[in-house]
């Protein structure tokens, strides 16, 4: 029997049992759209997280010092030594503390970071407008400040803060720039902080020791080598006390997060795939009913020369058409569904063509697989028995 005719017969049978076929299809429709929606949400979330981690700065190592006894920080001299090590592009030391800022009647508790000119590049956090911190600011301990975007909004609203004076713990600082909005990352909110020159901060916070350092490697490939070197340096400094410091590797974090989100995608996809499987069982169920109902038809077809193969193909094709059609509707619903989710729940979703192809092929495979048993049952009927069936 030719393929075109077989498809036609399958469609005809589906049309004569519209309601039943639709209900059978529903299992596949729900399965496929669930796979697409859940995976698109998972991948959208993954994309978001990856972007945020990447936005923290590339090739980045961050070091935080806990200290050992009285040795609780790193000095500027030691940082100069670090800067000269091979593979290190730049080093951005940070001194930080919590302060209260005030402008006219508005006050806000924020994180203060004392930084130098390298910070904006290393952390990939630049000024939205105004200027950045320059070497000369550090050299002359300028009392200037860059505001995080939320700090600016809180204190100034829509007004232009450049050139205005704010009070940090009661001391006047001149606003010279506003940082671009960054959102919160794993390290906390990046927009509720202010930056001042590191030398100013050291005096202001009465601390010379530096406990946070960001190091940028010259390329992503050698981040790990640099990490080893920095760790050796710190190990020596803190007399082999590994607990005295911690070195975070951005790339490592990225791959760990990648693993976590991959697992999440697999898990969600897997759960949805189970519902697709259940849909397949529905197909098997209805095809078995159909085989029984059409026993006589099978007998007639065999009497006039249909071979086992012909009957097998006919029934397999029918379940394939049911699942294929259901899969198609499921794909459309899945695309529409994740679009609605983005719109109404403002969750980032990402539909890759890959998952569309996978879920669609999977639906057809499921239909064919669960169609095999009923089809083979039909094909094995003996013509006489089938003809006698009322």
């Amino acid at each position, binding site marked *: 029997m030719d393929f075109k005719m077989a498809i036609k017969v399958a469609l005809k049978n589906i049309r004569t049992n519209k309601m039943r076929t639709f209900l059978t299809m529903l299992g596949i429709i729900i399965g496929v759209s669930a796979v697409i929606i859940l995976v698109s949400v998972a991948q959208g979330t993954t994309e978001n997280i990856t972007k945020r981690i990447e936005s923290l700065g590339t090739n980045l190592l961050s070091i935080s010092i806990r200290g050992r006894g009285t040795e609780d920080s790193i000095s500027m001299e030691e940082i100069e030594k670090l800067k000269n090590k091979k593979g290190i592009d730049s080093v951005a030391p940070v001194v930080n503390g919590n302060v209260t800022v005030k402008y006219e009647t508005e006050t806000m508790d924020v994180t203060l970071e004392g930084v130098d000119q390298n910070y904006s590049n290393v952390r990939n956090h630049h000024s939205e407008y105004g200027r950045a911190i320059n070497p000369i600011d550090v050299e002359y301990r300028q009392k200037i400040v860059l505001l995080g975007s939320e700090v600016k909004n809180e204190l100034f609203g829509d007004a232009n803060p450049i050139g205005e004076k704010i009070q940090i713990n009661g001391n006047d600082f001149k606003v010279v720039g506003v940082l671009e909005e960054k959102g919160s990352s794993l390290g906390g909110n990046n927009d509720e902080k202010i930056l001042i020159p590191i030398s100013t901060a050291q005096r202001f916070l009465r601390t010379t020791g530096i406990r946070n350092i960001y190091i940028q490697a010259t390329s992503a490939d050698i981040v790990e080598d640099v990490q080893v070197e920095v760790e050796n340096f710190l190990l020596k400094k803190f007399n082999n006390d590994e607990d005295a410091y911690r070195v975070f590797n951005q790339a490592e974090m990225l791959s760990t997060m990648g693993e976590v989100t991959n697992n999440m995608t697999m898990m969600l996809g897997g759960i949805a795939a189970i519902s697709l499987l259940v849909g397949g069982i529905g197909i098997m169920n209805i095809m078995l009913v159909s085989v029984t109902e059409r026993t006589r038809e099978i007998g007639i077809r065999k*009497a006039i020369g249909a071979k086992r193969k012909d009957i097998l193909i006919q029934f397999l094709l029918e379940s394939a058409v049911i699942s294929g059609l259901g899969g198609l509707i499921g794909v459309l619903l899945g695309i529409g569904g994740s679009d609605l989710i983005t719109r109404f729940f403002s969750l980032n979703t990402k539909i890759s063509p890959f998952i569309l192809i996978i879920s669609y092929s999977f639906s057809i495979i499921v239909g064919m697989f669960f169609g095999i048993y009923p089809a083979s049952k039909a094909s094995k009927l003996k013509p006489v028995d089938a003809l006698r069936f009322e």
Partner: protein
Amino acid sequence: MIKIVDVTKTYNTGKVKFQALKGVSLDIEKGEFVAIIGPSGSGKSTLMNIIGCLDLPTTGKYYFEDKEINNYRENQLADIRNKKIGFIFQKFNLLSNLNTLENVELPLIYRGMDEKQRKEKALKLLQNVGLSNHLNHTPSELSGGQQQRVAIARALAGEPQIILADEPTGNLDTKSGKEVLSILKELNRKGTTIILITHDMEVAESAKRIVTIRDGLILEERVV
């Protein structure tokens, strides 16, 4: 063309075994018109199923065109049914969700004939049985006589050497029955071998040879 030797058929229905044919031998030559007559339950249909390669005998030999087919595979039997035999049943056995034309096309589809050719052929056959105005009707929209004529057209589609008709007039009124019989006679006149199964002596009279069967045994053979 057909030779069966000492054929028996035993049905296993659960615990009870029932022997429907108890040793039947029969020769049918090319071009013959044979009627097999007997009361209900005598084993006529069982015999026809074996002759028509729909079922295999329990014991005994069956030669189709001088070839023993007892141990033929299912596919080989399907090929014989498709190419050499045309079936006409008491209950017409048309496919209810196909229209007239598609029903007649069916044997040609399984033979792998291309669409244009088989449509032409089916159309011609339906013209011959006077149904060219009913191509798009489904079986339920046709009278019994019309349905049987569609079934005849379908049986003839494959240009079979043998037509097997199991009580072809059983569900028809007298007039339609006569029409069907005259079609069969005409076919025989053109050379097709016809095996007609019936329990009605009047119907059997159309044939040239009458074989009487009772309780699974051949009682007598008579040439008309």
